[in-house]
């Protein structure tokens, strides 16, 4: 009731006001669901067996999915709930001169507007805290959020963000990671250096290894930026109680760290934050960081009403994390029998606008870059640099699919040149139990050869060992 008064104070035309109230009332589902619910159905056999481990047990959530009964975040409706939309910068690199929200605020049905300046602690990130919740002074990529609106309907919120005027001082974006890598490129993310992560793995003596090699193979490989595409877009709902405690329903895959990030950005104790993830509609690494959570929490606090925000599919592409593109230089020395004697690798990771999970990706890519092979002389070096593109972060494999493409392509190049069967060259070099990894770790439960042989037999690879 109170909020209707607020809208009226803005002297909205009476007709528009009535319309918005009517719309809002219609959002509340007035009718009982039209679905009978089976309450007693057979429990599949495998779920009733002991011992439980090794059974092809079905999933209780799988049944609910197939019935349309799983409650994803967008399936929640809380009474009085408002809908938030986030305005995206649309420019890749700029200084924010001003943000004018007056026209949006005056729209009938708009209840609150939020900008970065209002966020108690406007930064987050799993290692470097270099990402704002909403950009307030500087835009680092086109998907940066610059303001958010809460309105009685999603439609009104979407119209309202179009009315927000942001004045930018445009800067030249840096899009090429190799350009960013060069020291003369001005700091994209000052005071942070362009190269914000670096890793080296050294083992043996590569100069000696290359000198002893009969053949040396060199090639550069590149991979692209990829989106996770979870079918369920990022979403969250926040609601406060009168004790100053906020409950956030979220699509996050990591609520323990999500809660601490939310508490930090909101500047409130963790004991006042309850974070609940129901069933999440796909993650693949893309739902490991807060996105809309602080925004809905603050809009909910401003309005005293529950607030929901759902990413649009374009939001999902431009403002959630993505897979790191890599530029990978491989130099490998082998004996005439095909034994790898030395390998030198340089990886450049396009880190996008913010650090996110780049340090983990950098580390895993570098450690895994030599492949599952015994190589006594190794030098692998990896860099991650800022560019003014969508931030890259955790994605299924953390750099491993990229380096696997490089090391396995080169393995076949070697096999082709030396006229060795691709299966044989891998069996010749593969790790076994007790092999030392590139970081000097003694490996246990190693089954590389077993996977090779089993796959070859199943495939019908000529000359597969039996």
């Amino acid at each position, binding site marked *: 009731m109170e909020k209707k008064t607020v809208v009226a104070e803005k002297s909205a035309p009476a007709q528009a006001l009535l319309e918005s109230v009517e719309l809002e009332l219609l959002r509340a589902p007035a009718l009982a669901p039209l679905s009978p619910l089976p309450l007693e159905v057979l429990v599949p056999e495998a779920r009733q067996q002991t011992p439980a481990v090794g059974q092809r047990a079905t999933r209780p959530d*799988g049944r609910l999915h197939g019935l349309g009964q799983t409650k994803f975040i967008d399936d929640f409706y809380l009474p009085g709930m408002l809908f938030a939309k986030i305005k995206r910068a649309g420019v890749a690199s700029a200084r924010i001169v001003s943000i004018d929200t007056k026209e949006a605020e005056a729209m009938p049905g708009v209840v609150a507007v939020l900008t970065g300046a209002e966020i108690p602690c406007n930064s987050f990130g799993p290692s470097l805290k270099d990402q704002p919740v909403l950009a307030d002074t500087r835009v680092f990529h086109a998907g940066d959020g610059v303001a958010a609106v809460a309105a009685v309907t999603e439609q009104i919120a979407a119209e309202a963000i179009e009315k927000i005027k942001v004045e930018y001082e445009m800067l030249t974006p840096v899009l090429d990671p190799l350009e960013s890598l060069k020291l003369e490129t001005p700091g994209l993310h000052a005071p942070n250096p362009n190269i914000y992560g670096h890793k080296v793995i050294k083992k043996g003596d590569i100069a000696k290894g290359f000198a002893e090699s009969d053949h040396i193979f060199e090639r550069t490989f590149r991979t692209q930026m990829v989106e996770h595409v979870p*079918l369920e877009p990022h979403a969250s709902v926040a609601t406060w109680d009168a004790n100053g405690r906020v409950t956030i329903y979220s699509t996050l895959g990591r609520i323990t760290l999500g809660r601490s990030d939310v508490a930090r950005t909101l500047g409130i104790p963790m004991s006042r934050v309850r974070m609940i993830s129901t069933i999440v509609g*796909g993650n693949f690494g893309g739902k490991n960081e807060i996105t809309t959570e602080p925004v809905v929490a603050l809009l909910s606090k401003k309005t005293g009403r529950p607030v929901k925000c759902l990413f649009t599919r374009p939001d999902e592409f431009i403002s959630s994390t993505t897979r790191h593109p890599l530029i990978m230089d491989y130099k490998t020395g082998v004996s005439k029998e095909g034994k790898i004697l030395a390998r030198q690798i340089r990886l450049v990771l396009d880190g996008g606008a913010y650090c996110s999970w780049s340090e983990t990706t950098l580390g895993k890519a570098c450690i895994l870059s030599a492949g599952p092979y015994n190589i006594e002389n190794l030098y692998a070096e990896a860099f991650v640099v800022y560019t003014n593109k969508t931030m890259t972060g955790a994605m299924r494999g953390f750099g491993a699919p990229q380096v696997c493409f490089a090391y396995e392509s080169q393995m076949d190049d070697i096999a082709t040149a030396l006229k060795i069967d691709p299966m044989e060259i891998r069996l010749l070099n593969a790790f076994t139990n007790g092999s030392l990894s590139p970081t000097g770790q003694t490996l246990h439960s190693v089954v590389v050869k077993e996977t090779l042989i089993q796959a070859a037999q199943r495939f019908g690879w000529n000359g597969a060992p039996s």
Partner: protein
Amino acid sequence: MAKVTITVNGEARTVSVPPETTLLKLLREHLNLTGAKLGCDVGDCGACTVIVNGKSVNSCLMLASQVDGFDVLTIEGLATTDQLHPLQTAFEEKGSLQCGFCGPGVIMSAKALLDEEPDPSVERIRDALAGNLCRCTGYSKMIEAVQAVANSVNSHPSVKSA
């Protein structure tokens, strides 16, 4: 406001909605049938698939007023209080769904196919599901589940999909 009368899962309902309301919004927000999901809102992903007058459609691409007087079947209309639909049982038993967000849409597409063609080839199943994106499963176990239902319908003519 537009007045729309539809039969949903066998029951008639009349709802007054703003003219821009899609069938998906009508179902989710006005009828509390949240089984059909919003994944893209432009007809690319198929998470919102329902059956209108026997044909599978992307409900995000239809306006509510376009279905006035039509018969709409949603995922919620497949099971009865006594039993699951054979497709729901097969999808559960084969582990065909992982995150499940695409599941209701996939099952509705599969149902529309089996209603029209009780014994489809694998190619026909792949065709019928081509408009339903899934990021988790690689579609393998979905195709297996649809095949299993097709086979059981054929071997037991008394078991008809609802």
